[in-house]
């Protein structure tokens, strides 16, 4: 049996006394694309932050390839795990190339804050996100979608085998959403990267993920291949949504078609 890429082992997570998960255990297998889904506020980002050691569990451990992340230096983790947070700050007066170059930080040393290899990796990351023509533009002048792709390029330049993406498709139009998710699959196929992401679009999640984890009320509601997870029963519990699940004619993956509620139940009685 191969060692899991990431394990959250009986972790308790929360913010300022407000607990989101208690004793949660989740394993991520290497070389897979896993997507966390669930209603707003169910803890998708919380779990992702814990995997990315942005949030320290109050109990339990997070292991990266078997080693507790707390025992690794910040830089050692960064060479093996990259994370795209949900709301990064946009720096002033910075070109796309300079921004993406910052992804090379964990590979650089004090006397060599730059190398030809860094430049090559950056160019590659920029090319694979389709940003080559915009490489010398100021990030302040980019559209929302372009900026999002620049962030993804930064994470790709980090060249880590495990990549965590918090809502990588926000701000993107449908074709760019598809582009990003295809890119994710490509990286996974080409480099065997392990990818964990948070997505909101269930059909896209089903279409591009090997595994879906549905989070609900402080625990895992369903976990497995798309067809095992995306069922009307799970959707009803996790989202309070009545929906049909049918096979997507293009991909053969589950496609979620929401139903209109019957008129007399239109206003939820709360």
């Amino acid at each position, binding site marked *: 049996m191969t060692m899991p890429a990431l394990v959250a082992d009986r972790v308790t997570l929360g913010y300022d006394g407000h607990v989101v998960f208690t004793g949660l255990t989740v394993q991520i297998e290497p070389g897979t694309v896993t997507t966390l889904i669930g209603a707003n506020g169910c803890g998708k980002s919380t779990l992702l932050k814990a995997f990315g050691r942005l949030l320290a569990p109050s109990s339990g451990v997070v292991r990266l390839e078997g080693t507790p992340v707390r025992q690794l230096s910040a830089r050692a983790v960064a060479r093996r795990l990259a994370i795209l947070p949900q709301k990064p*700050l946009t720096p002033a007066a910075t070109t796309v190339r300079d921004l993406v170059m*910052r992804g090379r*930080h*964990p590979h650089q040393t004090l006397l060599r804050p730059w190398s030809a290899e860094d430049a090559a990796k950056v160019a590659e990351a920029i090319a694979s996100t389709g940003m080559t023509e915009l490489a010398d533009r100021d990030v302040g002048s980019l559209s929302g979608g372009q900026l999002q792709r620049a962030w993804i390029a930064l994470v790709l330049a980090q060249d880590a085998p495990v990549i965590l993406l918090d809502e990588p498709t926000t701000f993107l139009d449908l074709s760019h959403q598809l582009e990003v998710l295809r890119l994710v699959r490509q990286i996974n196929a080409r480099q065997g990267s392990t990818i964990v992401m948070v997505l909101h679009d269930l059909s896209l999640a089903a279409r591009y993920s090997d595994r879906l984890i549905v989070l609900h009320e402080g625990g895992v509601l369903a976990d497995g291949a798309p067809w095992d997870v995306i069922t009307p029963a799970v959707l009803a519990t996790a989202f309070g949504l009545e929906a049909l699940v049918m096979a997507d004619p293009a991909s053969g993956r589950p496609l979620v078609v929401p139903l209109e509620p019957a008129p007399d139940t239109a206003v939820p009685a709360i």
Partner: protein
Amino acid sequence: MSRRQGIDLGVIALPWRARVLWITLGCAVLVLGVFTFGIAAGSARMGVGDVWTTLLGAGSRTFGFIVFELRLPRAAAGIAVGLCLGLAGALTQTFSRNPLATPDILGVTSGAAAGAVVAIVIGGGGYSVGASLLGLGIPVVATIGGLLAAAVVYGLSWRQGVDSFRLILIGIGVTAILGGLTNFLLVRAQLTQATAATQWMVGSLSGVSWASVWPMLVVLAVAVPFALTQTAPLDLGQLGDDFSTGLGVAVQRHRLLVIVIAVVLTSAAVSAAGPVEFVAFVAPQVARRLTRTPRPPLIASALVGAVLVVTADVGARVAFGTEIPVGIVTAIIGAPYLIWLITRHNRKERR
């Protein structure tokens, strides 16, 4: 690839930023120039050539005395104060991501001022505590006050790590308390003591000697390399704490190190020359506009600080003839220049 991206010298490889390099070199040349002029100018006139031959050990004995005993300490102190404050300002503005944040906000300056004023006012008044403080010498008391205040600010800001926003707010509170104390002592003091304390509080290079220059040089020799090791984390810090952590920065350790460097630099400058205000705010802002970099460049900010302080000091001596504290002249020179840069910069962007 049309644009040169970096230079690789084997052990060392650096990204190639032509504008930053030229501006930095330009500032360095300017520092040397003003430095030379500062030594040459004065009641006993010397030529620029005389200055350098004397500095290199080949001048007459009279010039030797004037240069090494009288003018060099002051010029060197001006440069060192400018370097310390410029660098400290660049570090503070960068890690806090706020151009209005100067090292004063970390409590150093107000702590040093409170220490010095306590020593002057109470010491001058003849109380035993104050007298023994005064016996330590104002620079030492100011240093102790500054470091204590900064430690208090950092300690009070700690809540599962130090958040830079909280740190700034706590710093404002501590600065206010110390400022209140200082003002109270000034109001209660006799006019002569108040004048002495006010004089100290605007910052001046008139009283410096080699004894106040050496500590600054030692601090600079240690602090500059340490500051340069933080270049990359400072860049990444502009993306927010989460992204920095993700890219392998130990955020809390980095922040503590940057704060300590800024505090020690400021404290060294303040204990030598008093709180020379405004340099730490203006030098990084000017340097950033000149180099057009996303954040204040460290070395260039330090050099701009040095140019500003030495120019102000020399300018005050040459133009006014009297001893006007350097802290005043830095603002009179620096503020209009910064305003001009702001208006020019914005117009260019619009077109």
